[in-house]
């Protein structure tokens, strides 16, 4: 089922949670609503579900306006952040709930219910838990039972609110992949909310990046990551170094350093923001051979899995820079703690600045 979200606004008292959200979700798509906490992503999800009403705007399901349709009639499955399993019911009864509350005419027989619940338990690979109660389950198990319960009513749309938020890192990674596979199997239109960019990049077909009640960018994970449309998206998706400077005739002027900007659309700007990903910085020993770049001291070196992280302090005292090298690169250029080095961005993104940028309150 396709979903069209049309100019949705929503306020809570004086706080404007959504300021005109407008985008489409294609049938069978897995879409991530990504943004920092308080950006309105959960509110939007709840409006799509019908658990919250928009102040204005429309939610259109498969070409039909569903804005005024009650949540009961929207045929959505909703997975809550804290699972919201019925604590006094067994896992079996939890999953069967949506079938049992149907009006007599459409209610399946006891035998059909049993068959269906067992099939769903198998799908989430937890057959042996059917007699347990929710408090006896681990977080990951609860999450999968909550998903099975939502799927039992055969929803046309599956909505997940921070599905992995309350789980620890290892379980989260496994469940992520599992959800992706499950979606490929079922092809039900799904929307999930997350503040974890890695999660969105790994799982979603498309990402809707939100900030302060507005959509910043919509696109495939690669597109959003490689070509961020706004400084916010650049900062929010992955670690990034931010430099202030100006652009003069295709050259970036950052502090004392001049850096040639390749194929940039910006030729001239008195004030600009430069974004450089930590793994797109070349670190060279400053051996006086005239290489132009940003001078820095190596303050700390941390080996971390397959990469080496360098913490660098700019020689002009204008803050810190983080660089990530592969182990091979690191071995090749033999920098040590305390060395003075030259930083050469391999890729740089320029956002010309009219005035002060909107403060970005999210700390990576």
């Amino acid at each position: 089922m396709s979903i069209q979200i049309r100019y949705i606004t929503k306020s809570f008292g004086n706080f404007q949670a959504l300021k005109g959200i407008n985008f489409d979700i294609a049938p069978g798509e897995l879409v991530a609503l990504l943004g920092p906490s308080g950006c309105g992503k959960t509110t939007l999800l709840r409006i799509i579900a019908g658990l919250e009403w928009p102040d204005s705007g429309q939610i259109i399901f498969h070409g039909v306006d569903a804005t005024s349709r009650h949540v009961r009639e929207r045929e959505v499955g909703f997975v809550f952040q804290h699972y919201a399993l019925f604590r006094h019911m067994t896992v079996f009864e939890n999953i069967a709930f949506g079938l049992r509350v149907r009006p007599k005419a459409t209610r399946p027989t006891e035998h059909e219910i049993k068959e269906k619940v067992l099939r769903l338990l198998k799908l989430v690979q937890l057959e042996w838990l059917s007699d347990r109660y929710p408090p006896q389950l681990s977080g990951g198990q609860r999450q999968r039972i909550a998903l099975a319960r939502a799927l039992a009513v055969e929803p046309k749309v599956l909505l997940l609110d921070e599905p992995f938020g309350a789980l620890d890192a290892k379980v989260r990674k496994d469940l992520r992949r599992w959800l992706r596979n499950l979606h490929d199997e079922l092809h039900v239109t799904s929307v999930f909310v997350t503040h974890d960019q890695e999660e969105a990049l790994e799982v979603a077909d498309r990402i809707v990046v939100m900030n302060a009640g507005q959509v910043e960018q919509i696109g495939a994970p690669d597109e959003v990551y490689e070509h961020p449309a706004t400084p916010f998206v650049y900062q929010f998706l992955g670690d990034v170094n931010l430099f202030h400077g100006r652009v003069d005739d295709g050259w970036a002027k950052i502090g004392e350093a001049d850096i040639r900007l390749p194929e940039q659309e910006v030729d001239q700007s008195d004030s600009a923001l430069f974004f450089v990903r930590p793994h797109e910085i070349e670190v060279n020993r400053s051996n006086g051979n005239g290489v132009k770049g940003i001078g820095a001291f190596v303050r700390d070196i941390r080996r971390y899995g397959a990469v080496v992280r360098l913490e660098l302090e700019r020689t002009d005292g204008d803050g810190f820079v983080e660089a990530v090298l592969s182990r091979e690169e690191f071995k090749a250029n033999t920098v040590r703690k305390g060395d003075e080095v030259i930083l050469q961005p391999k890729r740089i993104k320029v956002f010309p600045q009219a005035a002060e940028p909107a403060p970005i309150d999210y700390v990576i």
Partner: protein
Amino acid sequence: MSVAVAIPQSSPGQVHSRLANREPAWVRWTLISLALVFLTGFLVLPLAVVFSQAFSKGWSVYASALVESNALAAIRLTLLVAAISVPLNLVFGLSAAWAIAKFDFSGKSLLITLIDLPFSVSPVVSGLIYVLMFGLQGWFGGWLADHDIKIIFAVPGIVMATIFVTFPFVARELIPLMQAQGTDEEEAAIVLGASGWQTFWRVTLPNIKWGLLYGVILSNARAMGEFGAVSVVSGHIRGLTNTIPLHVEILYNEYNSAAAFAVASLLALLALVTLALKSFLEWRLHASITPSK
């Protein structure tokens, strides 16, 4: 596609903190004996006295004090009052707690304060309120007299006073419980297609049943044992408007102490049963608060 399951392990840090919290032996024993002496002197002994006085003149006097017609009338009236006021307060308490815990509306804190009012007002005053309203000289007194409706010095007044006094028990028990449980499960039920009624019976009520029962037990104990408020509105008419506590007072004032204690032993028995039920419910309640997170 297997999913690793984290097994929580108790950390060694807990052992240390337990040791650090331990007081020296003499402190513990002083506190424990102080509590025991206090309990014996103020609670256990009086309770024992009630029963020993009740049986002081033998079993036959005890039994005859209970089956005497005025005593039976008092017992019947007490049961009737409890049978009316407890269910009413159950319904009221449940709806108030539901409204307060699950919805946001203006005037919410005022409602919470009002629910607590009967706790902070002296029972005698609560009784007087009804006399002032429905008594012969009261606001509605004339109108009631014209229509030959008796509220004060009759059963309706006793029921009203009892309802007022037992007002807060159910609501106060349920509000924190329902607030702690949140609305997630109800929302989940509704998304799954349940109607409001189904959600209440299948999700909300099972989650609060032990708390509800706890409130009802306390409310019932108070309804049967209430003296002050009922005393003001009852008029102490033997065999008609005397509840058990009022009957005890009359017998005692007539120096019929064996009979007074015999009837009082019923109330003491009620207290013991209430206590046992309460402990059991507290134990169940604890289990139902444990969140499913």
